[in-house]
């Protein structure tokens, strides 16, 4: 028998199971994995600088909406002056740059082309890789966002403002949570890939509601009361409107916003976990 290392001991499930890992070791392990994933994904993103610029430019919708509202008589009906409008849409642009998520698209590709299988064979949930990829892309976008904001203030110097330190911190927290929320929405819908090969169609389904109900096209204050109530019953305004209002100094219910974020994040996390557990049993490992 060729075996040297393993044949000498009995192979039983009890013998093979590792001792329990302590919480501190677990944290250290998690931190090391996070650093390694971020470093590799950041290196990958830097290979595609031109693509990142194009994606950043593709997020210019708020500026287009600003041009429409500021030139239109309807703009006055929003109850916001040109300065506040300009600040809101710049804030919406910045927030969108750091809350965008595209898990559905890559997950569908990975599942169909067999790239999901090697990920499932490692002791790390595949969604952590996607999370690292998103965070790395945000880090890559940062200089472009700063450049575009600078250009914005050069063109519209009267719109310049600096948020208070408190608002800046709250904006950071709200933007991060909005990203987590959007990421979980995408992950939850990506799990549907276990039932349908074309889950990406769902993304097109939610694209319009997100565009209009999130506050990208107009701040929620501009909505008719009934539509506003409908929007507020969805998680979408939390993705852009809430953090953008915080950043631009608009009136916003801070406690209610963070509470809603916490509820949606918890609910979606539980739903995503459930769908994953059921769905992964249906995985056919196509293309692998």
């Amino acid at each position: 028998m060729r075996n040297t290392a393993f044949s000498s001991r009995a192979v039983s499930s009890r013998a093979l199971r590792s001792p329990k890992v302590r919480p501190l070791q677990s944290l250290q392990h998690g931190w090391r994995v996070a650093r390694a994933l971020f470093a590799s994904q950041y290196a990958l993103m830097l290979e595609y600088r031109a693509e990142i610029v194009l994606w950043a430019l593709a997020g210019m919708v708020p500026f287009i909406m600003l041009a429409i509202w500021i030139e239109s008589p309807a703009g006055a009906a929003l109850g916001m002056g040109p300065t506040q409008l300009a600040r809101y849409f710049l804030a919406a642009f910045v927030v969108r740059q750091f809350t965008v998520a595209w898990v559905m698209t890559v997950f569908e590709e990975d599942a169909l082309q067999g790239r999901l299988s090697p990920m499932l064979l490692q002791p790390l949930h595949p969604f952590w890789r996607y999370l690292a990829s998103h965070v790395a892309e945000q880090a890559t976008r940062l200089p472009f966002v700063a450049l575009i904001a600078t250009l914005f203030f050069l063109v519209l110097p009267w719109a310049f403002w600096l948020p208070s330190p408190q608002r800046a911190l709250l904006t950071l927290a709200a933007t991060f949570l909005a990203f987590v929320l959007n990421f979980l929405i995408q992950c939850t819908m990506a799990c549907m890939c276990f039932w349908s090969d074309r889950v990406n169609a769902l993304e097109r389904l939610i694209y319009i509601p997100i565009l209009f109900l999130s506050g990208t096209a107009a701040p929620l204050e501009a909505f008719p009361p009934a539509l506003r109530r409908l929007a507020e019953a969805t998680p979408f305004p939390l993705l852009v409107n809430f953090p953008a209002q915080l950043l631009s100094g608009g009136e916003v219910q801070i406690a209610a916003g963070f509470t809603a974020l916490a509820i949606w994040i918890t609910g979606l996390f539980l739903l995503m976990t459930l769908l994953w557990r059921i769905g992964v049993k249906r995985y056919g490992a196509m293309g692998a």
Partner: protein
Amino acid sequence: MAPSSSTSPSPSPIIRVDGLSKTYRVATKDPGLAGTLRHFLQRRYKDVAAVRDVSFQIQPGEMVGFLGPNGAGKTTTLKMLTGLIHPSAGKALVAGYTPHRRQANFLRRITLVMGQKQQLLWDLPALDSLRVNAAVYGIDEAESRHRIHDLAEMLDLGAELKRPLRKLSLGQRMKTELLAALLHRPEVLFLDEPTLGLDVNAQARVRSFLADYNQRFGATVLLTSHYMADITALCPRVLLIHEGRLFHDGSLDALTQRLAPCREVRLELAAPWPLEALRTYGEVESCEGVVVHLLIRRDALTAAISRLLAELPVRDLEVRDPPIEELIGSLFVQGTLS
């Protein structure tokens, strides 16, 4: 037909498979516009049995070849044994774990290498991906450097690890993938066509690496390959699967005897001999002048050769088995396995 088995059960197999089956539900569609519309309005499904009631055991440290034509159920079986897919029926136990539960401790003990699939990041040097793997498997940095150096030496890899994966040749990529798949020193290796598409030298290198790895670390290997040289060089035992059923479990020699009840005898005679007379010794496969190929049943071989040497003007005589790939290939083409 029940599979033959040449191995006696052992108290602690590292892979234990019992009545494993997998049935896929596949949508069917008739050709043409009418078929397309029907498919859109009312989808019809058919159950396809990819693996049927397969049972075997593999001891720690064994290298086992897994043979069968395309679509026989080899890859499906490997996917079930690695926990990628759930079996429809039956049980599997690998390294003491039920694979489809995909517990972290199970995943740390196995690896699956698929010839044409990659786990490494395409645009980055392999070392970047290896750092991630080391972190994921909890291998400390000094130890991971040592293992990378060690495996790279065995695989004859050096500067290639610092070049983006897309810049490497197919052979270099395969070796790099093997390195990544083995960094965590898995006890059980599932290798699905690890030499597919490689040139002869690269195939030989991978083969020798796998043999070395098995010797050094005592790893268990279950290997599928279309290259019979991989199997003959590495695997004393083979499993043959056809249409989802296990047809043979035993040595390659036993498989050859089972598939080829006759042996081929090549004769070179001093003068041409009448065909009718030659037929009394066995089936005449070909007769070209003084060179004759006969097929003679194994149980009658000794007596037939004695007669040939005594009765015919034999200048040269050679007895051989038909190449195993030809035997398996022809049987699959004829569909005679069932």
